[in-house]
């Protein structure tokens, strides 16, 4: 396959190159600035302290758990939004999007007053012997809360683009709704599902505000990478930059492995 020469689709003005280029530099330049600032001589020792390794491992584990939780809750939500019609649907969608718009620290406060010891569900959880605050579960809840809209939005968009023609055929051949959903809808929507999951994972990895407000910070239990970076910045800026790079590399890896829109259905 030969690479096409530089060309513009009809109706695309050439001048977009300039602001687009500035936009690209806006994103890339800070990353370059960080790379320049890194103390490569001590990079290995900076990122392999026990606190750093604990934080990285905790971040990966909690982000994976919150992504699973988002899938478990988000797939049915996106399906309802894309494929059903019911009163209050617009309000439903607006509420789902809310965590995307409110500042994470507000999400943290809201979660605290829901799952906290004196929160709305605090008494019930306490009676069941479940403690949430200051545990890893709190980190996962905070991450899932802020990441859920990303998954629901991506999957809903994908389901809408697909339309329902294949499902109609499946149903006319006698497949039950559940079978149709499992064998037709989900496989077709897989690219959207995947990109939604990647977005949710990435958002979970970067979660800071809600976590610090709701879960606190204790090495190995609640101190995730962003919190560790923020803490290191005060005492050891070199370590903070090194850990930042690790997080960037993880993020890039996640995006490359499951690039959103790699396969367009």
């Amino acid at each position: 396959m030969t690479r096409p020469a530089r060309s513009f689709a009809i109706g695309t003005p050439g001048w977009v190159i300039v602001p687009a280029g500035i936009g690209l530099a806006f994103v890339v330049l800070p990353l370059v600035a960080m790379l320049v600032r890194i103390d490569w001589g001590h990079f290995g020792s900076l990122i392999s302290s026990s606190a750093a390794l604990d934080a990285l491992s905790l971040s990966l584990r909690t982000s994976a758990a919150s992504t699973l939780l988002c899938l478990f809750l988000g797939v049915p939500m996106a399906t309802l939004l894309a494929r059903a019609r019911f009163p209050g649907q617009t309000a439903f969608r607006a509420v789902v999007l809310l965590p995307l718009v409110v500042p994470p620290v507000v999400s943290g406060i809201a979660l605290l007053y829901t799952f906290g010891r004196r929160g709305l569900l605090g008494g019930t959880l306490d009676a069941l012997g479940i403690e949430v605050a200051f545990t890893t579960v709190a980190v996962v809840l905070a991450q899932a809360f802020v990441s859920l809209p990303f998954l629901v939005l991506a999957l809903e968009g994908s389901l809408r683009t697909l339309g329902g023609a294949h499902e109609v055929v499946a149903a006319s051949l006698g497949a039950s709704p559940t079978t149709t959903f499992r064998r037709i809808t989900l496989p077709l929507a897989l690219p959207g599902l995947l990109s939604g999951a990647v977005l949710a994972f990435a958002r979970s990895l970067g979660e800071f505000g809600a976590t610090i407000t709701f879960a606190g910070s204790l090495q190995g239990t609640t101190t995730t990478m962003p919190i560790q970076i923020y803490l290191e910045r005060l005492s050891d800026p070199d370590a903070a930059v090194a850990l930042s790079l690790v997080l960037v590399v993880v993020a890039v890896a996640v995006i490359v492995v499951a690039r959103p829109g790699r396969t367009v259905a």
Partner: protein
Amino acid sequence: MIVRLRVIVLVVLALVLLASCGEPLTVGLHRPAVTLTVFAASSLRNAFTDIGADFERAHPGVSVRFSFAGSADLVEQINAGAPADVFASADEASMNTSRLPTAVDPRPFASNTLEIAVPAGNPAKIRTFADLAKPGLKLVICAVEVPCGAATQAVTKIAGVELRPVSREQAVGDVLGKVASGEADAGVVYVTDVQGSKGIVEGIDFPESKQVVNVYPITRLADSRHPVLADEFITSVRTGVGHEVLADAGFGAP
């Protein structure tokens, strides 16, 4: 439908962007002739806000604007070129000339000691510093990287107690917040934090705290564009009404 979804996404993204722009826009025609910018440790928020209002009344045409944050954060910002006239820190380490070369003449103006904060009613029945080591107690303290955490560590050594906190927070305000919400049974904060909470948390004094005193220095910065005014502000903090306001907030003499 897809187009609509896209519009929604764009609007949401725009809102996210807007929400993350912290700096309020200056609207209005009457801008004061001179703006004095004061960077101060978070624990000084209440006291300095009052002192600033007094200063503005005594100096017509002058507006004092504050940036309150952790001392280490503020030092970093000043060194990165943030335009500050005056800097008041919560510890002497941040004021060290090796860390802050533009500090002109740091002078102590107040002191602060640690206190145990418990939710109203003291449900865990804390009486002494040693009580903080009780098993099962939900204790929250500052991370050792920030001034209140360093002070907590020093007191812990003096008291000979080993603490097992459920969380090490990055700012004393986060410790206070977790005690105030009842999430934590106890926290170690400054006397002034308890005073400033207006009864939401109860303070428990302990004798070991007297041996670890945080001294607060204040200085004009070399890059100040209003050096005379900056010095006047520092004087107003260190004498008269300023001194009274600080004492009311629970600060000790330097």
